[in-house]
């Protein structure tokens, strides 16, 4: 037996380290917090809950719906993000996000290895899944959903293959659902995953001979009971059944979905979607070249999540994470049964060498060291003072940083309520806590009527002025080239209070 190399990380641990450091130390960290205003929004809401030691139940951040009942879909996720943010600033939020992303991929890799796939194959497919998931790597609570989706699918897959007893399945997944429902509103993903396994079993039941049906029915019954157990688990949250009802209502409304980028079909022209394209191509090639005999469940998973990914880009990472183990199984079988040739022999030799080296690696200490060192580096200003070693901040050319500073320094320059750019709402909530926004990224909270009113003003439709008056809007903070900004510049009853390359603030002149 070879001696263990205590500092050398295994490939699985290496994946964790690579993604953790890669995200925290490169410009990815800026993408995480600057792609939209939602990281700021979650931090602000989480901070409120920490300060008040209570889950928020009524809105305090907007003036358009001040005091309206608010169902926080991800209160625990927001508290965790706010804790990280309050402790280490944006670096803290980056570290938390990097941990979630790295752990998700680490788990996926572990699953592939545990299912008997080659190390090289597992690593290649995990990296491809990472590429597909990167389209939605943002510092927001949905990263918990990615992580939990991997766990749910793994456990259900083990159960489906008879490698996990029913009791263990319940013990693992039901408490996990309790956690999930409090961490992120997309806990419904867990039910969709269970449903795909149920449908797979139903198809199998129809196809199987009579003698095999009782066993299949038994597993089907267990899955239904699991779904029921998880459904009960979703009640364990500060809003009880209202949370699920609220989410269902949101998903049914096309107007609200239209405003949320990630609910739209993926845009296959953007650079970030190449991972998804390659995954789809690999899936097609797998069936054309390898010609596996898939199980009914595999077909249902591929079909269901493929369709969901085409409908909403936010489902692309889930699709990639769920089909990777399926692809790995097929390619593993194909490679194991492949006719000997130079390429196959080279692959097998390489794989054997890497596996042998990997077996003696145990870099848990290294992983812990990396994490601690990065934490210390991030915490340097708070612990030792001085400027940060790693500067992570909101980009001044993307968000109205200077305009916010102007407002903070000149409170008398503005009066009344604000009308803000949709994408800046979350940032303004965090940076101007004394002011209330018109709207932010919480479409589900604002509802279709207010979102329509916002859209009417945003697109300068005929009733824009009446809507601003209705909400006592006294000032606007919008991008310089915004249609409303251009219009206000021509109006005598509005005056320019501030402008820079990013934003312009107009104030309404009192009569």
């Amino acid at each position: 037996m070879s001696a263990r190399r205590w500092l050398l990380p295994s490939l699985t641990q290496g994946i964790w380290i690579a993604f953790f450091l890669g995200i925290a130390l490169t410009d990815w960290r800026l993408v995480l917090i600057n792609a939209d205003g939602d990281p700021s929004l979650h931090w602000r809401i989480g901070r409120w809950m920490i300060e008040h030691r209570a889950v928020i139940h009524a809105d305090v951040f907007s003036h358009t719906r001040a005091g309206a009942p608010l169902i926080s879909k991800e209160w625990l996720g927001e508290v965790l993000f706010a804790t990280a943010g309050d402790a280490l600033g944006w670096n803290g939020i980056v570290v938390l996000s990097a941990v979630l992303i790295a752990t998700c991929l680490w788990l996926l890799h572990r699953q592939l290895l545990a299912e008997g796939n080659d190390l090289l194959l597992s690593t290649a497919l995990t990296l491809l899944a990472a590429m597909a998931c990167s389209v939605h790597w943002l510092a927001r609570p949905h990263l918990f959903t990615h992580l939990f989706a991997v766990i749910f699918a793994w456990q259900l897959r083990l159960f489906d293959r008879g490698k996990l007893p029913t009791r263990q399945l319940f013990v693992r997944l039901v408490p996990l659902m309790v956690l999930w429902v409090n961490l992120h509103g997309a806990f419904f993903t867990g039910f969709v995953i269970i449903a795909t396994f149920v449908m797979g079993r139903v198809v199998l039941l129809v196809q199987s001979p009579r003698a095999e049906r009782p066993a299949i029915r038994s597993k089907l019954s267990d899955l239904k009971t699991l779904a029921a157990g998880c459904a009960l688990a979703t009640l364990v949250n500060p809003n009880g059944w209202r949370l699920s009802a609220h989410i269902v209502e949101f998903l049914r409304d096309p107007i609200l979905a239209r405003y949320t980028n990630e609910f739209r079909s993926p845009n296959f022209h953007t650079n970030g979607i190449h991972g998804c394209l390659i995954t789809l191509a690999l899936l097609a090639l797998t069936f054309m070249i390898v010609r596996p005999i898939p199980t009914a469940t595999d077909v249902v998973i591929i079909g269901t999540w493929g369709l969901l990914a085409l409908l909403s880009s936010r489902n692309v990472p889930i699709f990639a994470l769920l089909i990777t183990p399926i692809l790995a199984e097929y390619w593993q079988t194909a490679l194991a049964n492949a006719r000997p040739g130079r390429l196959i022999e080279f692959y097998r030799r390489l794989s054997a060498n890497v596996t042998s080296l990997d077996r003696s690696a145990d870099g848990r200490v290294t992983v812990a060291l990396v994490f601690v060192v990065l934490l210390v580096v991030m915490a340097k200003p708070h612990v030792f003072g001085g400027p940060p070693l790693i500067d992570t901040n909101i980009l001044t050319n993307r968000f109205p940083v200077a305009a916010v500073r102007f407002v903070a320094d000149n409170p008398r320059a503005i009066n009344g309520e604000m009308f803000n750019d949709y994408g800046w709402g979350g940032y303004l909530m965090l940076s101007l806590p004394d002011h209330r926004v018109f709207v932010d990224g919480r479409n589900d909270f604002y509802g279709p009527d207010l979102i329509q009113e916002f859209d009417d003003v945003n697109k300068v439709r005929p009733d824009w002025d009446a809507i601003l008056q209705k909400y006592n809007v006294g000032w606007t903070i919008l991008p310089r080239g915004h249609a409303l900004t251009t219009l206000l510049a021509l109006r005598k009853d509005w005056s320019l209070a501030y402008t820079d390359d990013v934003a312009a603030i107009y104030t309404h002149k009192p009569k």
Partner: protein
Amino acid sequence: MTNRASSAIDSRRCWWLPSVSTILWLIIFLTSNLSAIRVATIASDSDPCWHWQEGNWMLQHHAVPRTELFSHTRGGSPFVDLWWLSEVVTALAGNFLGWGGIILVAMFVCATIVWLLHRQLLAEGNELLLSTVLALLAAAVCATHWLARPHLATQLLVVVFAWQLRWFQRGRTTTCRLLILLPLLTALWANLHGAFVIAFALIGIHWVGTVASWVGATADEKPAVRHRVMVLTALGAACLLATLLNPNGWRLPLRVVSYMSSPLLMGLAQEYLPPNFRDPTMLPFLLVCVLTLLMLVIVRPRLNATDALLLLAWFLLSLRMVRNCPLFALVATPILAEHWNAYLRAAPPSWLIRRYRTISATMTSVNQMAGARGLPLLATIAMILVLAKPQIVGGRPLLTTELPANRFPVGAVEFLRRSPDAVRGEMFNEYSWGGYFILAMPERKVFIHPNLDVYGEELVRDFLKVNDADSGWDDILKKYHVGWTILPPDHRLSRVLAQRTDWKLVYSDSVASIYGRKP
């Protein structure tokens, strides 16, 4: 088949009964010409308008335009017409029979696309029921892009090209026929529509697939594979030369390539955007994808390299641009038919399979009695007569087709005809109306119209700046001597002009507002 069997079948033929292929043709042709669908084919955008007008110019001048004719921003600049022959046909049809004539030609082509595809599936030995269902599904995918525009020629020629190349791969057509027919068709394609480059994509995929098959071929098979590679290489070269047979020569393919390499220009045209799968019209495409997936997992065919590449390449191209979705359906359908047909033939006789075979056999039996061959021609002539009724016997038309006044600024154009002095200087127009103005107001020049290839990136950027009322918009309007605008009333620029004291509202209705710069 023996003579006796053949004459037995002939004697059973019913002269009044059309074949299923003919029925498909008739349904598509008549439905689209006689129902409200016909308006959608000309009114989804204004492209049919400027194609008609460009065709008119060519008929009047007996020449292909070499300079831009319709805009004041690019008037006189060098221009390569990517679809001159389609425009001439459009203008002939439009001048003779109005919009109805243009729709008739367009729907004739659409019906022929589906008919050809159906004929191909049957000729390849697929069951009638399966062929019909798949052809209808492909038609549903293509119908999302069935507009009275030159790209219909591309859809038609894709079916022909794909069919011939497929049969060449399978040894069902001769080298000679391939090397004569396809270059000729390429020459025609290059004059009909700028997407003739798709011919090279198809040939290229077949070439790569054939080379890939050489790897796994036995020693006996290699000479045949080598021969196919050489033929396809020669075919590619011949087709490339054939593309030069157009009024602009080598400039045409270069123009196509340069247009396709501009993300800004491509991004403005709706059909170059990725598909929106939330749109219900994408459902047929999704069904084809599902059918393809089910074929791969249930039928598990041993696809040859070419078919695999065709499916993969066109699927990925469809995800990149919605205009490729119909082409995916047209290319994938014969492959789907082949393998589903084999699977259904060999499937164990369950209740469903027995039902399918019974229905298919009945359909085939009835189809064999079909003897009505001239119905498409009759239907076309009848349609022409219906549309030409005012010219032939006078009186009011039986079928009127006009551009909808709630979609195009018909009222505003009428006003400008009545009061030509109400506006001065050049116009700034709504992008999607540009083509309409070219036809409806030929005496005036547009700022822009959807043939973006003409305008180039710099002007398009200028246009977008004004369109978004971005800072500097007025300077750009002054640069192009724009004295009036014609835009939707709730257009961003209309709202801004309403606030400006140096502009006044000249005309407004529910569709369009005209603002004029005060002297």
